């Protein structure tokens, strides 16, 4: 095996170890942990024996193993970005709710608060 293969196996192995630790200590959801573990094991097996990937590629009608990896990488990267984007949107929305609530709780009376604050006193009031 080439030095690159050893480095890759080491990195993937360490990531697998961290993933197992995070899953067993409930820092990572079980479903996500198992999915990552499967992907990492497949990656380690592919790094140990790259010809195995080529055989799998040939079995599904693709000539080279590298092409198979590329074809799998593109949709999974897009799916990953979408998942992160959806999560980011949710976090932003939650942040807005917190900011909004804080603003409402800490509303400051302005210089013009007083008798006018009774709604509708001018007959065409469109405000609180």
């Amino acid at each position, binding site marked *: 095996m080439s030095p690159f293969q050893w480095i890759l196996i080491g990195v993937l192995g360490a990531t697998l170890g961290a993933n197992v630790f995070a899953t067993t200590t409930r820092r990572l959801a079980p479903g996500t942990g198992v999915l990552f573990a499967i992907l990492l094991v497949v990656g380690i097996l592919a790094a140990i024996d790259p010809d195995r990937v080529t055989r799998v590629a040939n079995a599904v009608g693709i000539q080279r193993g590298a092409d198979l990896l590329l074809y799998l990488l593109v949709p999974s990267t897009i799916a990953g970005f979408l998942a992160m984007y*959806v999560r980011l949107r949710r976090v932003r929305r939650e942040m807005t709710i917190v*900011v909004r609530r804080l*603003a*409402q709780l800490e*509303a400051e009376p*302005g*210089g013009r608060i007083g008798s*006018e604050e009774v709604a509708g006193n001018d007959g065409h*009031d469109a405000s609180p």
Partner: protein
Amino acid sequence: MVVPLYNEESVIGDVLRRLRSTFPNVVVVDDGSSDGSAEAARTEATWLLRHIVNRGQGAALQTGTEFALARGAARIAHFDADGQHRVRDLLEMSRLVASGDCDICLGDRFADGAKEVPRGRRLLLRAAVLFHRVASGSELSDVHNGLRVLSRRAAERMEITADRMAHASEIVDLVTNSNLPVRQVPVRIRYSEYSRGKGQRWTGGFRVLLHYLVGRIFG
């Protein structure tokens, strides 16, 4: 009256003074301004609410609307802080909602020919109208006018979730789906050098479109 405020220190005092000559209750929502806008607004506002970080005009409008509803407002008006709207237009719109003529009254700058609207902006706004006609089935002729008056029940039904400028497009959908009586009233927009400098550009228009589409897809 809900006025969303972001970095309008030089004009907000005059805008609020004009407003208060007719409308006594003004809720200003400072959306995390980095200049002295909040301080400039404080003396003329009835209530000043402050977002501790900038969340966008849509978020500020929703904050102010919720606050006004919680304090028992019969009607809610949205009025831009940069001084481009006229108080007399708002007065007319407010009267229509108060009389029960409609629940939602929207400003329409195109009703009188929109001669004052710069050509580039007119094209952009016309494209937005066309888009909403196709995408939402909207029959509105001015879909990105910040001047609007809502009855209490209309405001209660509307929840603006688009934080930034896409809220105007979201409001079009909410209006279209509300099944409440809607009216558009001719209004004039003051396009000063100041407001032109702060207005939407084509790139901004595309960003709004992107945020709106993403919002419709992902909710």
